[in-house]
């Protein structure tokens, strides 16, 4: 398959030449997706933990909703944020559309349900194991929440990675709210889509290979960190 071989060569060439446009695009992709992931973890983990630990009206509905929204199509998330941030939308006065921040918001909304739903599962499993012991020590659900998040940290690593993986790979949401503007909102995935539009299939594939390599190295670093942490924190 010559286009695939060509793609490999082009990927290698792009990396070796340390193309500054490429560096900019990779940097933006990482900044946007890591930012969205950090925010989603910050908000999603407590939401998931609360859904796991507390009994309140609408809890079951929330759990079902979070589980269902894990499959939220990126285009829909993007369109939703677009309509909010558009000059004719409720938050249009902020002028955030077609900015990196808009992309962070869209990806945040996209992966929040993933982080929250999977965190709920992790915390629920830990609560099942810890509940009697923690209650015996005098810790109710409120005090248990941070404890369980901390004790579930190794599983939550994977949860966060799932969110990051979806964010870095999606194109539908960032395309709509970012606009794929050169040097402003052009990410790896929107560049790939653009090169496919141009019929530059080998170049698009080369960028795809770089994106995969990027995702692998981010995941690899997290796993290495997790491994080290596990040796100190135990299992």
């Amino acid at each position, binding site marked *: 398959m010559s286009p695939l071989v060509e793609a490999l060569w082009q990927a290698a060439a792009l990396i070796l030449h340390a193309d500054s446009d490429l560096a900019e695009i990779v940097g933006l992709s990482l900044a946007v997706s890591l930012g969205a992931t950090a925010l989603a973890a910050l908000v999603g983990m407590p939401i998931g933990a609360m859904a796991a630990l507390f009994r309140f009206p609408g809890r079951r509905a929330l759990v079902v909703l979070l589980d269902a929204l894990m499959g939220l199509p990126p285009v829909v998330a993007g369109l939703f944020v677009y309509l909010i941030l558009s000059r004719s939308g409720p938050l249009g006065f902020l002028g955030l559309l077609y900015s990196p921040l808009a992309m962070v918001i869209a990806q945040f909304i996209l992966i929040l349900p993933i982080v929250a739903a999977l965190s709920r599962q992790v915390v629920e499993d830990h609560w099942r*194991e*810890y509940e*009697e*012991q923690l*209650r*015996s*020590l*005098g*810790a109710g659900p409120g*005090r248990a929440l941070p*404890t369980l998040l*901390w*004790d579930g*940290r*190794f599983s939550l690593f994977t949860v966060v990675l799932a969110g990051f993986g979806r964010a870095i790979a999606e194109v539908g949401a960032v395309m709509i709210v970012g606009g794929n503007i050169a040097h402003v909102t052009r990410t790896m995935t929107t560049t790939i889509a653009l090169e496919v539009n141009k019929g530059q299939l080998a170049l698009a594939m080369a960028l795809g290979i770089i994106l995969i390599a990027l995702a692998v190295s981010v995941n690899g670093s997290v796993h290495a960190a997790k491994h080290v942490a596990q040796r*100190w*924190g*135990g*299992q």
Partner: protein
Amino acid sequence: MHGPQPILPLELREVVLALGGRRLIDGISCRFAAGLKTVIIGPNGAGKSLFLRLCHGLIRPTAGEIVWHGAAGRDPASAQAMVFQRPVMLRRSAVANIEYALSLQGLGRRLRRERVAEVLARTGLSEIADRPARVLSGGEQQKLALARAWALRPQVLFLDEPTSSLDPGASHAIEEIVRTLHAEGTRIIMTTHDLGQARRLADEVVFLHHGRIVEHAPAPAFFDGPASPLAAAFLRGELLWRE
């Protein structure tokens, strides 16, 4: 050393626990005063673990009352501790597990350090203090669970089959710690399915069957001549598979 106001005696009045229409605890009334080591025995399914959990407040009874006479309106929970059959350790060091329990009671940092060092030394765990709790052996984890309970300086300690998954050496160590705790004034209420352990530790015995107390007697009397045919059959090692 356990605070000025004792929470004992503990009294259960006509306590019932029903789940899905079955009365798992079927009208228990009894009283535990300060001082003794009580061992609860009975065949599997008799309700031993549920009985402990009801006393400790982990489960609410369907009917009846559980009264700590000494508590006089205070929350009796902080004066009790429980050690479970399978120790649940947090994913942190042995020391941090004990510190966590103490911080829940609102103890200051200095006092926590002192208590932790003391109980680790007395349970022989000082050398593994900084190891992650979850990589310790089963026996070490159970010792750590006891140390954690001990550090809380409970007036009453509940133990639910604390040695059921341990080898004889570890079981012996656990029993020694229980004896020490008792010698220092902690009321012991525990379950076991090991009749030998019951003989070694019990001052008094509660024999449970089908969620009811069949006998509640001083240990020597119970083991020498049980009053009920059920208890006698149980002590002979028969399976009590029907009434």
